[in-house]
C-alpha cells in the first residue's frame, strides 16, 4: 500500500502539483467551492426530511431537483480531491484524518446512492416521517464526518 502511495506521489501529476507554487492552492479552492455546493444540495433534502426548510414541497420533488447538483459537485470534489491526494499521497498514508475521511466518504456515497436515494424517491405516502428523519440524520452525520476529517488532514502532520 505504501509503495502504491509513493508511486502516486512520484507520478507526473503528483509531482507537477507538488512542485508548483500555486497549483495546490488553486485546486484546493475549487475543492472548497464544490464543498459549499455539495453541502447545499445535501442539506436542502436532509433538512426537508427533518421537517425544516422547504416544507411545502415533497421530499421526492426536492431530491429530484437536488440530485444533478449533488452528483455534479461530487464529481468536482472527487477529481480535485484525487489531484490533491496525488501531490501528498505519502503524507496521507500516515494521516489518521485521511483514513477517517476515506472511510466516511465511502460510507456516505454508498448510503446516499442506495438507502437515501430509495427513500427520497418513494411516494411520500409510503415513507413515514421517522424513516425520513433517520435517513437524514445518518446522511448528515456521514457527510459531516467527511468534511470535518477532511479539514483535519491539513492540520495534522
Amino acid at each position, binding site marked *: 500500500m505504501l509503495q502504491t502511495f509513493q508511486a502516486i506521489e512520484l507520478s507526473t501529476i503528483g509531482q507537477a502539483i507538488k512542485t508548483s*507554487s500555486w497549483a495546490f*492552492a488553486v485546486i*484546493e*479552492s475549487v475543492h*472548497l*467551492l464544490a*464543498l*459549499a*455546493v*455539495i*453541502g*447545499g*444540495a*445535501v*442539506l*436542502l433534502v436532509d*433538512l426537508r426530511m427533518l421537517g*425544516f*426548510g*422547504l*416544507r*411545502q*414541497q415533497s421530499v421526492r*420533488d*426536492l431530491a429530484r*431537483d*437536488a440530485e*444533478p*447538483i449533488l452528483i455534479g459537485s461530487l464529481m468536482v470534489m472527487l477529481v480535485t480531491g484525487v489531484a490533491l491526494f496525488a501531490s501528498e499521497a505519502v503524507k496521507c498514508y500516515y494521516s489518521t484524518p485521511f483514513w477517517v475521511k476515506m472511510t466516511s466518504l465511502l460510507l456516505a456515497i454508498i448510503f446516499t446512492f442506495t438507502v437515501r436515494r430509495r427513500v427520497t424517491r418513494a411516494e411520500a405516502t409510503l415513507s413515514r416521517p421517522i424513516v425520513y428523519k433517520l435517513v437524514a440524520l445518518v446522511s448528515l452525520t456521514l457527510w*459531516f464526518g467527511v*468534511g*470535518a476529517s477532511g*479539514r*483535519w488532514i491539513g*492540520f495534522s502532520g
Partner: protein
Amino acid sequence: MSLLGFCQWLAATRPSIALHESLYMYPLVESVHVLTLCLFVGMSVLLDLRLLGITLRRIPASDVIARLVPWMTVGFIVMLTTGLLLFYAIPVRSYQNIFFRLKMIMLVLAGVNAWVFHTHVHKRVFIWDMDPKPPGAARMAGAASLILWAVIVVSGRMIAYNWFDCDMQPQPRFVNWAAGCVVGQK
C-alpha cells in the same frame, strides 16, 4: 489611531495571543468557519440558481427565499462570528494581506447586491413568483451573488498563503500598495 495601529493593539491583547498560540482552539474555529460554508454558501447557491431559473423551477421564488433565508442567516452569523475570531487571532498579518483586503471588498459588494435585490427586485416578487425563469434583474442579482461569493471563498482560502506578505520583500510596488505594506519596517 490608524487601522494598522489598531490591529497592532488588537494583536497585543491577551485573548488574541491565546487564540493565536492555541493548539486546538484556532483550528477548531477555522473548521467551523469552513464547514459553515455548506450551510451559508450552499443555501445561497441554491437560491441564486433559482433566481437564474436553473433549479427548483416549480417552486415559487418567494417560497424558496422565505424558507432558505432563515438558514442562510444562521449560517452567516456563524461565519461572521468565527471570521471575526480568526481575524482577532492574527490581526496585523490579515490586515496587510492582499487576499483579505480583496475578500473584504467583495463582502461589501455582496452586501450591496443583496440589499439592492431585497429593496428593489424582491419587492415585486409577486409579479414573477411563479416564473420558472425570473426577470433579468433577478437573474443579474443571482449571477452577481454567485460570482461574488465564489471570489470571497477563494480569496478567503488564499489568505493562508504568504506569497504577497509584507515580510516577503521585495514585492512589486502594486502589491506593497494594495497590501498597505510599510516597506523598510519589519
